[in-house]
């Protein structure tokens, strides 16, 4: 017979009292572990979400950057250089001869870096009759991009190879044309290299062919009637300077601002990026708010549960002391010291703390793991804090013993003569 055996046998005998004590410790330990683990789950989830959002944002920004390049191509250009006296309408006018300028101008412009113009695209555009189909179309001869010296950027527009044609939406839809087919235009055969999607503008009735072939078909060799010059993401207030520089470089031309849409799109892109950043920031703030709420909840719940458990253990120990008055009197009569009696009750409370802590820690982990079953298991693995579990298992018996201290002390100080005299 030893003290541990005595305590264990008494626990087995008074299961309800011990079970209730274990339950209270388990509830407190469970709350603590669950709350702490959930906070850690929240942190890990936040890290993961924000990392994903940041990666998403980076991808979006890259996509926007690429889109912007394409937008610039589709919109046309920041500026359009036309022969002096010509207007944009003249490009699609078949009633009077077009105003022209030398194709050489495109090379002059490309070789003399003007401000921040990054792309130079010479074109020859003319509204013409498609004699084989008895309908009017816009013919655009394109050379592709005249590369600017030392330019490192990707070309915006690939040249249409000689003998090939790109067909606008309305044309290929109404004529039932397919890519790879051959069509005859002004007596010459062209292989359809691409069918354009619907644009809702004059592009839908446009045929794009190689610039030199267009010059030959229209009888305008070495001539163009527009240069599309791009300045990426330019600002409108710089247009006057660009215009002055081009005027000096290319006499007999005029510069039309063609950038408002592009700028709008650029601004939209910047706004989208700003919104994405703001959204990320908002997400961060939202997560921080949610964490603060959880923390505040834990900050009052855990002390309340711990206090309730301590009071409950003290009460149960008090009841146990009352039930065991005769035993205390006998043990003292047998020569058991007051400190040993104290140890019996403290040991019992510590045992309830240990068992409760193990059950509570397991239950707390279980609850935390099942709180949001949609989360990946990896987050839970990262959130589990073995140090916390160990601390709970170690400190719970100590706290339970502390809670039982006063009633245990009362037990130890009971007068055995008084108890034995009462019978």
């Amino acid at each position: 017979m030893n003290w541990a055996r005595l305590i264990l046998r008494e626990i087995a005998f008074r299961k309800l009292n011990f079970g209730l004590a274990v339950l209270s410790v388990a509830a407190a330990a469970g709350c603590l572990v669950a709350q702490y683990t959930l906070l850690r789950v929240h942190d890990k989830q936040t890290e993961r979400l924000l990392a994903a959002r940041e990666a998403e944002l980076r991808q979006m920004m890259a996509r926007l950057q690429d889109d912007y390049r394409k937008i610039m191509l589709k919109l046309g250009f920041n500026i359009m250089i036309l022969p002096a006296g010509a207007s944009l309408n003249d490009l699609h006018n078949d009633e009077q001869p077009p105003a022209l300028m030398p194709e050489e101008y495109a090379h002059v412009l490309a070789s003399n870096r003007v401000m921040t113009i990054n792309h130079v695209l010479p074109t020859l555009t003319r509204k013409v009759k498609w004699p084989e189909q008895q309908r009017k179309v816009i013919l655009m001869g394109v050379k592709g991009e005249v590369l600017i010296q030392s330019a490192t950027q990707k070309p915006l527009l690939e040249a249409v190879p000689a003998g090939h044609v790109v067909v606008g939406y309305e044309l290929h839809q109404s004529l039932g044309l397919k890519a790879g087919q051959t069509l005859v235009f002004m007596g010459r055969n062209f292989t359809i290299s691409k069918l354009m999607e619907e644009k809702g503008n004059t592009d839908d009735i446009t045929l794009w062919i190689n610039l030199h072939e267009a010059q030959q078909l229209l009888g305008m060799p070495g001539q163009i009637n527009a240069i599309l010059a791009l300045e990426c993401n330019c600002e409108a207030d710089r247009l006057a300077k660009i215009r002055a520089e081009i005027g000096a470089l290319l006499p007999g031309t005029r510069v039309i601002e063609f950038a408002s849409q592009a700028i709008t799109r650029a601004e939209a892109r910047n706004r989208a990026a700003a919104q994405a950043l703001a959204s990320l920031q908002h997400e961060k703030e939202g997560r921080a708010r949610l964490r603060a709420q959880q923390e505040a909840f834990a900050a009052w719940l855990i002390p309340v549960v711990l206090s309730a458990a301590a009071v409950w253990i003290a009460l149960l120990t008090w009841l146990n002391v009352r039930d065991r008055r005769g035993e205390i009197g006998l043990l003292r009569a047998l020569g058991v010291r007051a400190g040993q009696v104290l140890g019996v009750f403290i040991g019992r409370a510590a045992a309830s703390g240990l068992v409760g802590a193990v059950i509570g820690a397991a239950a707390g982990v279980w609850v935390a793991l099942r709180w949001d079953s949609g989360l990946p298991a990896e987050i839970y693995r990262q959130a589990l804090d073995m140090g916390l579990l160990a601390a709970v298992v170690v400190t719970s018996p100590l706290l339970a013993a502390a809670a039982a201290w006063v009633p245990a002390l009362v037990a130890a100080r009971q007068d055995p003569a008084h108890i034995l005299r009462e019978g």
Partner: protein
Amino acid sequence: MLVLEKISKTYRTAQGEVRAVQEVSLEIKRGEFVAVRGPSGSGKTTLLLTAGGLLRPDNGSVRINGVEPFALSPEGRARFRAEHIGFVFQQFHLLPYLTVLENVLAAALPRPRADAVDRAKFLLEKLGLSARLEHLPSALSTGEKQRTALARALFHEPPLLLADEPTGNLDEANGRNVLESLAGYAKQGGAVLLVTHDPRAASLAHRSLMMESGRLLQADK
């Protein structure tokens, strides 16, 4: 072995003072079986608890084996009790969650000994309880309970055995059995003080004293 000199004990209650023991002197030698008889409330239990070092008298002195237990520290007094005194009570005070054998072994808690199990089994066999070693007190008859308590009291072979109404809850046969055991222990050299109102005790004790209103009145044997 036990010397009580003019001990007095007064309880202060809401109803006033109760003079439980008044200037009682008593000496019990080794091998002597002394019975103190008297009605309920006469101060017998107070006398016994005082003699056992559990209840400090207001006046007078207690000496056991030449030692004044109340001169010792509480811890020293507890150790002294474990080494020198055995108690048997009317209510048995068996621990309900321990078996018969474990109840006897409870005496080894404050004073462990290497042969504890053998010693406990020997005593239980001697008292006719060898078939009950693993039973809980709830499965025992009152006589068996008291014999278990007696085995526990005799575990360390204490020089002084104090018994408070040990036959109070027993039938005649069991009561006689317990009294004979106490007398037998005295024959082996132990000093036995029995407080009881059982008239049978007088026939087995070496001395039988009457107690009334806190005073030892006379020796009736």
